[in-house]
């Protein structure tokens, strides 16, 4: 059986800036992998390469055995929640969900449960997006990412802008998805969130992988019990 996500020798350069330099990583089913690193480390570029938004200069990416390239078919396996959600202002929440559902095709088995868990009422979803708060748009974005039961879930700073209760519900949903076999790729600057959700961690600096392993391996390597301290230790070592 193919691994949900395999990245091999990925390279990308923007002008003189080397964004990714030979990234290798594999996501296993049911595992939450956090990609962390300082600003401009290459986290967003890596995610965008997986989504086909950025074309790598070299290397390959395969999602469940399908090569990432011009054919967008592989993206039906992926659920993506961007860091900041922007939708057409005059469409209602329901219309946004319908558009994304139409483009994706297939069933959305968890739609009702997700709406209830994240507290999005029918009344809220009937309002134009321009009248919704940033947090509510983020909830909409979470539903879009999760509703089609993707086998690979990509979450870019998922709890940014969410209230503590919704944030906790979202994390619970992510844990449930991972328990049911979804491979999760998470980026976050909140190390407590990484500690809470992740099984494995990839530490990127200047487009290179400086650490890859489980959280226990990270603790062992750095001698730190807390992930936040362990990552800070990695940063000091690399600097």
């Amino acid at each position, binding site marked *: 059986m193919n691994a949900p996500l395999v990245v091999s020798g990925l390279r990308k350069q*923007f002008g003189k800036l080397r964004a990714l330099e030979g990234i290798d990583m594999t996501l296993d089913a049911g595992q939450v992998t956090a990609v962390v690193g300082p600003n401009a480390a290459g986290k967003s570029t890596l995610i*965008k390469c997986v*989504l*086909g*938004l*950025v*074309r790598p200069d070299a290397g390959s990416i395969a999602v469940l055995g399908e090569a990432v390239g*011009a*054919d*967008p*078919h*592989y*993206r*039906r396996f*992926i659920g*993506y929640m*961007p860091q*900041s*959600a*922007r*939708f*057409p*202002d*005059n*469409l209602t929440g329901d*219309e946004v969900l319908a*558009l*994304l559902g*139409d*483009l*994706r*095709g297939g069933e959305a088995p968890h739609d009702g449960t997700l709406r209830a868990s994240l507290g999005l009422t029918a009344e809220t979803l009937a309002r*134009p997006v321009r009248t919704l708060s940033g947090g509510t748009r983020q909830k909409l*974005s979470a539903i*879009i990412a999760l509703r089609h039961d993707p086998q690979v879930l990509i979450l870019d700073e998922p709890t940014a802008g969410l209230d503590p209760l919704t944030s906790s519900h979202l994390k619970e949903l992510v844990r449930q998805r991972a328990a049911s076999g979804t491979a999760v790729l998470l980026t976050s600057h909140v190390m407590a969130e990484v500690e809470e959700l992740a099984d494995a961690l990839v530490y990127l600096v200047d487009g290179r992988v400086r650490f890859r392993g489980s959280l226990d391996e990270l603790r062992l390597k750095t001698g730190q019990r807390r992930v936040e301290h362990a990552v800070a230790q990695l940063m000091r070592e690399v600097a």
Partner: protein
Amino acid sequence: MKAAGKVLGYGLSNLLRNWWVLGYGLLFFLLTDALFRFGGGGPRVVASLMNVVLIVIPLVSVVFGTLYFSNSREFIELLLAQPVGRPALFTGLYFGLALPLAAAFALGVAIPAVGHGGADLVRPVATLIIAGALLTFVFTSVAFLAGVHFEDRAKGLGFALLVWFCSAVLYDGLILFVAMVFRDYPLESALLGLTVLNPVDLARVLLLLTLDAAALMGYTGAVFERFFGTPLGIAAAGGALLLWTVVPFLLGLRGFNRKDF
């Protein structure tokens, strides 16, 4: 292209509720209605509208289009993360903007024209609407080209405005300059060629010919009438306007297909 139709449908749904698009249609409605009431009626109304159409439509299409594309960037990224191809998405986004803009203009002019005008105005008003709609498609293509190639919104808008300024304002000056410098030479054919190269001038000439006002352009007007009045001339003019729509669209699509978001 099924996905393009879906994106187009939601684009229409979004923009037909947009106050700027509704206001744009209302502007043409009020202007056309006022001209019919107070402007003497008949071809003079169409001639007055023509001057507004040739300046306002390219300007609104190019500015609104560039801002629309750049403001939709995050949503475009989200759409591209779905199983949808880039050509289908670009096509859906383009028509989702160009169609509501063209429809707002067409309805804004057509409704009062039907109310006030007689049968003799059908041809000039229809030509005006067709020319305005084509200009909308041309300058929306230019706007999308700018949106694709410039990450910085200000630079994209600057490029789009430069194209508008060159075609709607500067080009006439250039033609005048050429006519003055080479006044001792037979220039009619060259001017005809230069006109075909500019969509705004092309629309102007087509409208003047429809209004039988080509005589105002003197000998050049007669040359234009002789050329554009023939099936070959009409085909050349139509083809040139179509090229002006298709070429920037295809260049934009090419850039969109290769773009790193």
